[in-house]
């Protein structure tokens, strides 16, 4: 199913139909009815003046809905930068509550938020960063049974999870709904990120069939900042059509050695998740 027909099934307006940009990437088509106040034009000016972005790109950003799976170490920079950039609607999902040991990296939350739901805490923080956008806070645990409901009419899924079993649930749904899915993970001073959009790219299961064991992982907050910020940038590139996405390649960042390494990712034609969708 194409994303356009997916949206039509969801009862969305046809203004969200995708088109291809000059690099062959799918991008949201702008809606000429979207207007900006003078305040918004000033707020977003530094990105609007970016070549290839402009008011047209900003309209696409304003029309977009992004599903952020997790409001922790990765979810914090993702939500902050997407909110600051003016993404019209963020659906932020996290069933957890901020703990003191989260605060070295989860910069959406502070000591006063301990005991609140993380998605609610995120919503409150973002309201101070950009009151022009809408945040929908979801406090559910992501499961196969509720994933369609949680993602709703979002145009893209951002993986800010801390475990692979839930990532595989997100991946399966993204493959089924043909939604783009930005995957990332962090550990210590290293991280990885790729842009998944089947059938054009391998899915997460092609890359990592199975799950590493869940554990309490070491993490420096700045690591989540680096990788989460890269995720936010990929989302904005997808929405505006600017640049070339991290499709079919994984970027590994080793902060201890301060090195990036890129790996070409092949599709697995026998993949049990996306293998029959080529």
């Amino acid at each position: 199913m194409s994303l356009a027909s997916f949206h039509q099934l969801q009862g969305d307006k046809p203004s969200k139909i995708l088109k291809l940009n000059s690099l062959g990437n799918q991008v949201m088509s702008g809606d000429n009815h979207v207007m900006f106040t003078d305040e918004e034009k000033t707020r977003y000016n530094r990105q609007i003046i970016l070549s290839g972005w402009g008011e047209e790109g900003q309209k696409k950003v304003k029309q977009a809905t992004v599903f952020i799976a997790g409001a922790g170490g990765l979810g914090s920079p993702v939500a902050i930068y997407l909110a600051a950039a003016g993404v019209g609607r963020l659906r932020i999902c996290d069933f957890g509550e901020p703990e003191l040991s989260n605060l070295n990296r989860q910069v959406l939350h502070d000591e006063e938020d301990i005991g609140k739901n993380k998605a609610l805490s995120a919503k409150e923080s973002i309201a101070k960063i950009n009151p022009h956008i809408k945040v929908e806070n979801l406090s559910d645990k992501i499961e196969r049974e509720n994933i369609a409901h949680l993602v709703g009419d979002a145009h893209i899924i951002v993986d800010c999870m801390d475990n692979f079993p839930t990532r595989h649930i997100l991946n399966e749904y993204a493959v089924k709904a043909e939604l783009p899915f930005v995957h990332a993970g962090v550990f210590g001073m290293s991280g990885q990120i790729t842009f998944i959009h089947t059938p054009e790219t391998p899915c997460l299961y092609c890359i990592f069939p199975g799950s590493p064991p869940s554990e309490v992982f070491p993490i420096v907050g700045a690591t989540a900042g680096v990788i989460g910020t890269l995720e936010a940038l990929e989302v904005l590139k997808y929405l505006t059509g600017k640049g070339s996405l991290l499709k079919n390649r994984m970027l590994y960042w080793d902060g201890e050695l301060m090195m990036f390494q890129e790996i070409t990712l092949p599709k697995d034609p026998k993949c049990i998740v996306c293998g029959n969708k080529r």
Partner: protein
Amino acid sequence: MEVTVKLFATLRDFLPKNSDGKSCRVEIDENTTIKQIITQLKLPEEIPKIILVNGLNGSIDQTLKDGDVLSIFPPVAGG
């Protein structure tokens, strides 16, 4: 013959103590597979891995030749 093994992220803890912290050299016999090297370095078998040989995608049953550079990447799971 000898190959260079580069390990990334969490796998770097499995490098021998005399390594440079990024990679190590491993003496191997002819027809040694990547799987055998993974076993020799005691890398956890249950962790899925991305394997590159001289920068190109490799498979666990692939054999190596003298001078090859084997890179092994684990999934980084935190968030």
